[in-house]
């Protein structure tokens, strides 16, 4: 009996294709071009990163009260931010009344947190969401503006900083979405008069820059209104921003409506549903789900665009930071100011885009392979 065939055990893979060396070889050094690119990237990092870190962290001044605390070693002066922090958050909102803003912020966080949690039942989420969209703005408005329930009134001219940015963005978002849906439905309508009105409206607002819209709302709106009637500056900006974003929203929603097959409309009509029921129960839930990334992108664009109200003299985050950098006592710290503002905007926009990606994944039902 010859010895039975026993194969050698498999050799382990060569050391240079697994683990860290293997990863480096595959991802950084796979070809001469790749090696050159790696060297280039490393050089870029070497040139930019150490000075940046030195400026922002290692040589920076973190504590102090006045500008004399800084001016030492070429690092950033974060004291500038620290001193102005309250102003950046609340603008010129009276200090004694800032608790109202804090309470509104707390309410928003408490109300919105369950929406992001996984275990809350969907029905509750929908109710909470509607509450946030319909009731919360009223509570927030009463809290901010005052004049009721013994709260001292605070003029909208004193609102500012991040507060104002969030107010404009929040109102813009909650008002532009329903308006955009209506416009999109109008544009897809069979009635020629309504369709052409909607197309004209959408294409007009999409064709002009937001800055001219704001100019128009601040210069021309007073001319359009009957004598004696006047809006405050914030409301005029809000109208401009909302109409502008509604046109963009309409185009996004139209994309979703066009993606719904005709059979869905016909089946719903065959069941005896009327137009509004077809739209609200069958078509829009599917269409809006399809365009969530587009809707969030529009929100992000709107959030960034709120910085433009600086042009008409409102003190949002952008303008208040800019204003602080021109303060004669604190000249020369514009970089710190802009970097701080950029970080705040970035945080909001980046988390919105991440949230939209996760939502998109979660709602991606049906056509998964």
């Amino acid at each position, binding site marked *: 009996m010859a010895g039975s065939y026993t194969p050698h055990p498999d050799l382990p893979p060569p050391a240079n294709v697994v683990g860290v060396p293997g990863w480096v070889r595959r*991802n*950084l050094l*796979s070809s001469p071009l*790749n090696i050159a*690119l*790696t060297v*280039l*990237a*490393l050089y*870029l*990092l070497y040139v930019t990163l150490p000075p940046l870190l030195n400026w922002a962290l290692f040589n920076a001044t973190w504590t102090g009260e006045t500008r004399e605390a800084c001016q030492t070693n070429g690092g950033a002066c974060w004291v500038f931010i620290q001193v102005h922090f309250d102003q950046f958050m609340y603008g010129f909102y009276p200090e004694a009344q800032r608790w109202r803003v804090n309470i509104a912020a707390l309410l928003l966080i408490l109300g919105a947190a369950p929406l992001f949690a996984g275990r809350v039942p969907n029905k509750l989420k929908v109710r909470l969401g509607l509450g946030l969209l319909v009731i919360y703005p009223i509570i927030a408005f009463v809290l901010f503006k005052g004049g009721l329930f013994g709260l001292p009134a605070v003029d909208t001219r004193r609102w500012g900083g991040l507060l104002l940015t969030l107010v404009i963005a929040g109102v813009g978002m909650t008002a532009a979405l329903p308006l955009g849906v209506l416009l999109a439905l109008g544009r897809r309508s*069979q*009635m*020629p*008069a*309504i369709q052409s*009105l909607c197309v004209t409206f959408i294409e*007009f607002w*999409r*064709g*002009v*820059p*937001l*800055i*001219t819209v704001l*100019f*128009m709302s601040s*210069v*021309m709106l*007073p*001319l*359009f*209104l*009957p*004598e004696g009637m006047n809006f405050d500056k914030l409301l005029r900006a809000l109208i401009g921003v909302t109409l502008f974003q509604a046109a963009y929203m309409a185009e996004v929603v139209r994309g979703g409506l066009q993606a719904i097959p005709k059979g869905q409309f016909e089946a719903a009509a065959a069941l005896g549903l009327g137009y509004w029921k077809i739209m609200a129960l069958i078509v829009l839930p599917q269409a809006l789900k399809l365009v969530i990334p587009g809707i969030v992108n529009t929100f*992000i664009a709107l959030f*960034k*665009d*709120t*910085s*433009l109200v*600086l*042009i008409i003299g409102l003190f949002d985050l*952008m303008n208040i930071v*800019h204003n602080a*950098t021109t303060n004669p006592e604190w000249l020369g710290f*514009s*970089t710190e100011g*802009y970097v701080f*503002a*950029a970080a705040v*905007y*970035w945080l909001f*926009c*980046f988390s919105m*885009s991440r949230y939209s990606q996760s939502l998109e994944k979660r709602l991606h039902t049906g056509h998964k392979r």
Partner: protein
Amino acid sequence: MTEQAASLPPKPPFWNDPHIRAIVFQAVALIAAITFGWRIFDNTQDNLSRLGIASGFDFLSSSAGFDIIQTLIPYSAASSYGQVFWVALLNTLLVSALGIIFATLLGFIIGVARLSKNWLIAKLALIYIEIFRNIPLLLQIFFWYFAVLRAMPSPRQSLSLGDTAFLNIRGLYLPAPHVQTGFGWVLAALGIAIILVIMLARWARQRQMATGQSFPVLRMSLALLFSVPLAVFWLMGSPLHWEYPELRGFNFQGGLVIIPEMASLLLALSIYTAAFIAEIVRAGIQAVSHGQTEASFSLGLNSHLTLRLIILPQALRVIIPPLTNQYLNLTKNSSLAAAIGYPDLVAAFAGTVLNQTGQAIECIAITMAVYLTISLLISLTMNWYNRQVALVER
């Protein structure tokens, strides 16, 4: 017959008839729109007559009386408001055109880098995109203008690049080319070279159709395009003179000046839009399935031809429509110039002229009309191009 008619359901009452409803709804919408428009028109008339503002475009011919820091056409303080409009429009077009070129170049490079097999390069591109598209454009413009360019040294301490280019708080000074007699011949040679290249391409195509032999058109065209004008340039005795900026007293004289307003606007617009274009390019290239590349290789095409004939035409089809949108956005965003005082249409015309004359409606209407026209022209051009590259189906 009668039986059938009887079995039909009863006719719905007229208020439930969709046709009648449609007519009523449209009539209501139209009447509402017209009333709204009429109210606005009426109020405006009242307000204008109360404020004593004469409407009309007569103000365009009166003298402006202010200076503009960057003019592409002859302009002085004595010129008319109409001339201001043209100066401002050209400034807008200049910064938009340059911005589109730079943003496209940068965007394509970063978009391709995002797909690189090199991990470091891909991550760097991703970081670039995520940082710059999530920060408001206005903030970026302010950063470049107030924190970088306004912090430059005075002309006497300018940063210099080999004594030809200087950067200081007044702007970037570059050598300016001055053409001399005989430069027309160089341009003519360039024109002839372009015609030759077109003829060459046509001939090479016909030959390939007839015989199957290919001809290195690209290399030959580049050689032609460079060699012919250069040869003429040399023969004519280099009819181009470079004027270098020189420090005289407190400021530089001569040369080509790029004002800091323009530089920061251009930097911010290009960097911001490039982040969006990069994502569009990435999505477009990823939309071409890998099977296409494999099929092309198995047909024997090399990687260069695969890119040119298989991947790019299909990727461009996906890229063009959103790219058009970005070009439009860039053009409209150039109006943010108003915030830093670059004399574009919004800053100089809808800003200064409006404030001086008080003709709010006319100025804003003209400005909006110009942007609408530009939007329309860009989308028409890109739609035309889109049709050229679109999929031809049965």
